[in-house]
């Protein structure tokens, strides 16, 4: 895979002195020898550049990215030592012409004797080229991933190389004290606008700010020697005179972990980053949690424990007081206040897509006070936090490297607002690589999402669940209730937006947290095996995924049973049924949909049952049960609509699980 000379340690020179020695021999010949791509034949180099050009043209259309496209390719042509006369044709490739040549370029590269063992050197070369100026653009990384896919280099290999390079650059990138004091002086003299100060709110006299101005200390790329060979480091170092590697990793080595928010930033109480992984990478992932529960999920990190290889991982800690309130409100709502049967019914109502205040059952409306307040507070806070996150990213606290963002529920909302904020600014492209929004309580309109695509280099995943009634309920009073991103796919013609229907995994809003490991697999985020997790997730096997669902169901049922629900026995029966269905390996159809007429009955039963059953938590007044009946008639109308909807969209629903409702009525 990687050649011997590239392995760390063989000629690694960690001390700057050694690096200086390396720099003393930058004779052009030696340099040429060391940049592997320059050893390729001219036609291969042409094919290599052309392949990148064609890919850039395909990946980044539009005028916003045109400057980046041209500069990147121009740099690459120079890096490859190709004649300037190829620039016109490279321009043609960038503008989308000649993409039919990709196959030819690929076969030329494959025929190259130097690449006989695989195209990994090309990818490594491309990474080295991309970071050589101390700035790793998110778009460059998207390109590299695209090209490595074309050249059949596995993402793991890319990740490994990036990690090795990152580690060694980091070693080399320690800033000398003299430099940092000089920088501080410069910063103090600078007048910063207030919003910038808020965004940067740092401790230690604003050590961080300077980097963003690109005036970080000149540093020697000694560490690169570890992976590129000594001459390679020289090439990295001398390509720009002296490379500025520190900027890659953010301010003075502190980066996100060192980031502390100014005490009095607007309405935000808490905002900091918690590292989830160790090590230094050339890219990072920020995970944003949506709420906090008690027990297993009482920390911000808990849902992300199975997040796999995706660079440095950070978890955003924000407004824990409010998120905890919201979490407990949600849990009590789902596990106690609203009966399982009513929840099932709600699921289908939401599925029908027509949600008005009238259709909500009395039990839920009565519980509104429990949830509405924390929800509203958190909605506002998450928007604020999102804007603040945008400031942090814009000021490159994380260093000049690509950021992936992932979040569920309100965490997704934080990210959404962060991207909206970034989009309203010029020059925010190339910061964010990939984005995953799960069950996002945000506007799902085309216009809003179109804006976002401008600042995201890679893909935007919208993980939604059609039957997430809680989300629909929480949005009942909002104007955007018919267009919530977490409930439906985003209808937009953009190759970068990927809609993932998580209905088979997520059965209620709380599942976004509980089923995170399964969800991560479903949306294609790398995962790792966690000791104690319910299954191994290294290979995304659908079977495993569906098998896991009944487990979840059982726990949920158990909770219901514990809540002294007299229907407990029936439910266990149901969950066993569910297990059988799931184990047959039906993709995406983990849940069972009862017959509608039975459901109506059961709903009726449920309303009356809950009257006796849930006395402990909650008792219905006569008035409320009356409105419950009124709701029922509302349901009747809904189901007509839903009937057709379901047929259209979910052809393989299993309808064979009507038995439980029958049993239920027996009771």
């Amino acid at each position, binding site marked *: 895979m990687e050649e011997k000379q590239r392995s760390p340690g063989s000629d690694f020179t960690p001390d700057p002195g050694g690096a200086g020695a390396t720099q003393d021999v930058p004779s052009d010949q030696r340099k040429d020898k060391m940049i592997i791509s320059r050893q390729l034949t*001219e036609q291969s180099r042409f094919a290599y550049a052309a392949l990148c050009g064609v890919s850039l043209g395909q990946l980044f259309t539009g005028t916003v990215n045109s400057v980046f496209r041209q500069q990147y390719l121009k740099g690459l042509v120079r890096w490859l030592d190709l004649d300037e*006369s190829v620039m016109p*044709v490279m321009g*043609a490739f960038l503008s989308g*012409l*000649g993409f*039919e*040549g990709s196959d030819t370029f690929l076969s*030329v590269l494959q025929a190259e004797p130097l690449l006989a063992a695989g195209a990994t050197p090309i990818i490594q070369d491309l990474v080295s080229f991309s970071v050589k100026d101390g700035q790793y653009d998110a778009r460059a990384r998207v390109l590299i991933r695209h090209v490595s896919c074309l050249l059949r280099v596995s993402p793991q290999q890319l990740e490994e190389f990036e990690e090795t390079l990152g580690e060694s650059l980091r070693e080399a990138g320690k800033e000398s004290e003299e430099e940092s004091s000089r920088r501080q002086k410069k910063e103090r003299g600078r007048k910063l606008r207030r919003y910038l100060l808020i965004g940067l709110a740092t401790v230690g006299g604003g050590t961080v700010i300077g980097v963003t101005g690109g005036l970080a200390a000149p540093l020697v790329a000694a560490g690169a020697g570890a992976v590129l060979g000594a001459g390679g480091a020289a090439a990295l170092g001398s390509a720009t005179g002296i490379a500025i590697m520190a900027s890659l990793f953010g301010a003075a080595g502190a980066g996100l972990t060192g980031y502390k928010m100014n005490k009095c930033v607007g309405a935000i109480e808490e905002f900091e980053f918690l590292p989830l992984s160790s090590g230094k990478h050339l890219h990072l992932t920020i995970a944003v949690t949506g709420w906090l529960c008690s027990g297993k999920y009482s920390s911000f990190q808990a849902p992300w424990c199975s997040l796999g290889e995706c660079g440095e991982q950070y978890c955003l800690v924000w407004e824990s007081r409010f998120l905890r309130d919201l979490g407990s409100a949600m849990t009590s709502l789902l596990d106690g206040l609203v009966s399982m049967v009513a929840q099932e019914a709600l699921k289908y109502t939401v599925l029908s897509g027509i949600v008005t205040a009238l259709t909500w059952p009395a039990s839920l409306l009565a519980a509104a006070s429990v949830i509405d307040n924390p929800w509203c507070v958190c909605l506002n806070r998450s928007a604020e936090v999102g804007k603040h996150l945008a400031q942090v990213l814009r000021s490159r606290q994380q260093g000049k490297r690509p950021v992936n963002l992932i979040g569920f529920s309100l965490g997704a909302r934080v990210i959404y607002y962060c991207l909206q904020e970034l989009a309203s600014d010029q020059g925010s492209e190339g910061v964010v690589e990939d984005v995953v929004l799960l069950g996002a309580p945000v506007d799902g309109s085309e216009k809003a999402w179109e804006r976002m695509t401008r600042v995201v280099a890679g893909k935007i995943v919208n993980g939604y669940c059609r039957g997430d009634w809680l989300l629909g309920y929480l949005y009942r009073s909002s104007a955007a209730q018919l267009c919530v991103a977490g409930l439906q796919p985003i209808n937009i013609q953009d190759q970068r937006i990927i809609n993932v229907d998580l209905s088979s995994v997520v059965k209620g809003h709380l599942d976004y947290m509980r089923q995170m490991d399964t969800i991560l697999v479903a949306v294609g985020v790398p995962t790792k095996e966690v000791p104690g997790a319910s299954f191994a997730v290294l290979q995304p096997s659908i079977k495993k995924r569906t098998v896991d669902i009944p487990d979840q169901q059982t726990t949920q049922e158990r909770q219901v049973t514990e809540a002294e629900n007299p229907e407990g026995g029936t439910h266990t029966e149901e969950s066993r049924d569910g297990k059988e269905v799931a184990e047959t390996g039906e993709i995406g159809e983990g849940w069972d949909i009862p017959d509608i007429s039975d459901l109506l009955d059961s709903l009726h039963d449920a309303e009356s049952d809950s009257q006796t059953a849930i006395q402990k938590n909650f008792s219905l007044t006569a008035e409320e049960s009356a409105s419950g009946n009124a709701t029922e008639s509302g349901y009747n109308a809904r189901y007509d609509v839903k009937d057709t909807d379901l047929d259209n969209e979910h052809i393989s629903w299993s309808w064979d699980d009507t038995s439980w409702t029958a049993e239920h009525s027996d009771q």
Partner: protein
Amino acid sequence: MEEDILTTLKILIIGESGVGKSSLLLRFTDDTFDPEQSATIGVDFKVKTLSVDGNKAKLAIWDTAGQERFRTLTPSYYRGAQGVILVYDVTRRETFTKLDNWLNELETYCTRNDLVKMLVGNKIDKENHEVDRAEGLKFARKHSMLFIEASAKTRDGVQCAFEELVEKIIQTPGLWQSENHGRPVQLTDEDVGGESCGGYCALF
């Protein structure tokens, strides 16, 4: 400006190394000539708008490298080309005899069977011609091609070559109107001889 343009045509220039493909293109697009023109790397690309019979056509011209080592790259450019210019050097016989190979390659890789071909004998300003005009004409007729002799150095015939090619393409609506492409074009010997070559005979 953009609205006036009738169509965008993809033109390809092929031929042996050193016959003057890039010089022809440079003469046509920039009206310059460099005796020290360096070898093309991979492929070159130029755009030029040309007006023929009141129709404006945008030409996207791909100038391929003649060198053997870049041969592997060429096939990708044949795809979708509406016109091809085959160039040989009148002072080097072998560049003429190798035309058959080029035609074969063209046959193999191009996606349209009705594309317009033009044969250009370059460097007629030079003294010692090894391929005479009649020979070129005969070859062009045999393969239903347009024919012209030209010199990138003295400008002779360069503009005509491109204009004639574009005219022919525009006269073949199936070529550039995507709806009904695939309609075969009748290029008989008489057509070629009478129309294009005849026209040029008068020029020289």
